[in-house]
């Protein structure tokens, strides 16, 4: 497997690259060659058997057999047509499907490949410096294959009118192939940004592999809402690592919706690296059949007076499996830390299961850190209450399941994004109208 990845690595096109990039790729390849894929003996992957992903090398993704039309993309997109959108097909930027009007002085929204060619000086200070190759074996593999992805550079004080959509599509002909999207988002001081990162399979049968890494740098006093939507093909594997570095008094909030893929794992790592910083992490996973959906979050409180607030929920049906691991790390310097973590799982079937684990490591004494996890079925009383108003049992169950989801969806602050997410979730849960 490692040999196969090595030869794919050797075959990567060179072209006009800044001199530091091959070194970064090489360190990724060498790191992956050393570690190999994670195994179930690795504590971090204990509940997430990788199957084929741990045994075979996925070939490089190819251009689609038939080029995608705008109409085909619209059906798989997210949000509103007026939102600026960078569309990637099978890992490569598709300018003809993207919509990027100039968004303001100094704002760069482009593919990473283009940024590497044109403005490498904006990329170099960050790429691979936050989510390094040694974070996980898959970030190493991603580093080895850095080619394309999204690059956003939002200058100080910029307020974007619309959310920016990053759409990663994989076509039905990519079975056995892999993409390694690499995204870099740099948000300047006092800027306000809503970002939507969406992964979508064009059909439900292709067993491809998406291995994404996203680095987000949030400047002082900046405000960012980062929505992540994973709707890969039902046979696909999706592994992703998001790393967030936060400067003083910045506010970062994320919402992670995971519905697709046979196997998905998202690591979200945020570092509160300066006083007065705030991170709010919300998640909703909806899985059925044999799906496995894994969320690992890590919040590092490195400085005093920071707040982190985390609510992850999962709805598991059939034989689906959920994994949640929430690390909160508080250094001795990080006094007055306020951290709260909640993980709630709703089981819709007796064969569904979840492994949930809070992991709090606290080295400061004047802090407020709490965590709580609940796992359960739909309560009988709300069900009876709803039925007693005339709603049939089956519909009442769906309504209460949706209510469980809607409570966390409500935390998305950008109205248009929340409303679109609500539609996606309602469609999945068989509910016609919003709450």
């Amino acid at each position, binding site marked *: 497997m490692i040999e196969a990845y090595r030869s794919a690595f050797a075959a990567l096109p060179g072209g006009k690259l800044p001199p530091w990039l091959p070194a970064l790729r090489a360190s990724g390849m060498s790191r992956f060659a050393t570690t190999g894929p994670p195994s179930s003996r690795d504590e971090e992957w204990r509940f997430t058997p990788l199957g084929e992903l741990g045994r075979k090398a996925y070939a490089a993704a190819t251009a689609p057999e038939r080029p995608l039309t705008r109409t085909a993309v619209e059906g798989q997109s997210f949000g509103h047509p007026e939102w600026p959108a960078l569309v990637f097909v099978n890992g490569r930027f598709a300018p003809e499907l993207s919509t990027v009007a100039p968004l303001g002085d100094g704002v760069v929204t482009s593919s990473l490949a283009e940024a590497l060619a044109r403005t490498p000086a904006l990329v170099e200070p960050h790429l691979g410096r936050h989510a390094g190759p040694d974070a996980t074996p898959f970030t190493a593999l991603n580093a080895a294959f850095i080619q394309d992805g999204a690059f956003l550079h939002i200058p100080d004080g910029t307020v974007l009118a619309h959310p920016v959509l990053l759409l990663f599509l994989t076509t039905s002909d990519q079975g056995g192939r892999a993409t390694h999207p690499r995204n870099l988002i740099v948000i300047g001081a006092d800027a306000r940004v809503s970002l939507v990162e969406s992964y979508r399979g064009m059909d439900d049968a292709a067993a491809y592999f998406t291995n994404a890494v996203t680095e987000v740098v949030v400047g002082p006093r900046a405000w960012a809402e980062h929505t992540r939507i994973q709707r890969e093909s039902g046979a696909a594997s999706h592994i992703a690592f998001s790393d967030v570095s936060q400067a003083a008094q910045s506010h970062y909030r994320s919402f992670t919706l995971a519905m697709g893929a046979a196997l998905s794992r998202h690591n979200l790592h945020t570092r509160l690296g300066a006083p007065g910083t705030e991170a709010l992490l919300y998640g909703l996973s909806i899985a059925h059949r044999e799906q496995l959906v894994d969320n690992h979050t890590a919040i590092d409180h490195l400085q005093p007076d920071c707040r982190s607030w985390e609510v992850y929920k999962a709805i598991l049906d059939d034989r689906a499996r959920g994994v949640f691991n929430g690390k909160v790390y508080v250094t001795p310097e990080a006094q007055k830390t306020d951290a709260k973590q909640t993980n709630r799982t709703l089981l819709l079937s007796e064969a569904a299961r979840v492994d949930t684990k809070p992991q709090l490591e606290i080295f400061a004494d004047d802090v407020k850190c709490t965590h709580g996890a609940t796992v359960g079925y739909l309560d009988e009383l*709300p069900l009876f209450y709803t*039925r007693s108003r*005339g709603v049939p049992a089956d519909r009442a169950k769906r309504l209460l399941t949706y209510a469980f989801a809607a409570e966390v969806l409500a935390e998305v602050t950008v109205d248009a994004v929340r409303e679109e997410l609500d539609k996606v979730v309602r469609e999945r849960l068989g509910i016609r109208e919003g709450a």
Partner: protein
Amino acid sequence: MLEVNSLRATADDKEILKGISLSVNAGEVHAIMGPNGSGKSTLAQVLAGHPAFVVTGGGATFMGQDLLDMEPEERAQAGLFLAFQYPVEIPGVSNAYFLRAAYNEIRKARGEPEIDPMDFIDLLEEKVRMVHWGPEIMKRAVNHGFSGGEKKRNEILQMAVLEPRLAILDETDSGLDIDALKVVAEGVNSLRSPERAIVIVTHYQRLLNYIVPDRVHVLADGQIVRSGGKELALELEAKGYEWLTGVAEVA
């Protein structure tokens, strides 16, 4: 409209209703009174189909149909409404959404088309005003974070929207201040009509000052021990339940 015949029911294998018979006609208001633990709330919940209780004997019909054979939603669709003693919180679903879902399901069951969403908002606004509330209540999640009084008022709002044939109010008056009590009474009285019936389950006579009953029944230890006119409630208020049950109540 409602015929209850020697009804027996258990919870956790303990018999709570020990043969209750009751006949409520259209146009009537009945009050069911009794001390704590007499079974009056159980009777209300059994009639609505609460899954915690098992009917072990007797029967009940509603508008000629076998009530006990119907699912809780079928009872509601046929026009039965229970105002819960402890209304349930449903975070994540707004009052407006919840009520529209219920309203449309009841219409659907009667072969009527769904209501236009705009028309429903008009209807809901009117009912919200009727219970002396502001429109913000429609957006709040069902009973979530409501005070005890707000929850009771919300039951009356639901009743006003769903316009049942038979409304059973399970201790809707408990814990209400006098202003809230008047709102509840106003809501109930506005529903009174020759086609509808109302059953008020209550511990105290207080609500009956505002909703004057046609019949009063006193329950003790799972049985009706006395039935009478509205003056029975006043007599109970004066003499206490001990008068009929022989057991002093510990307040």
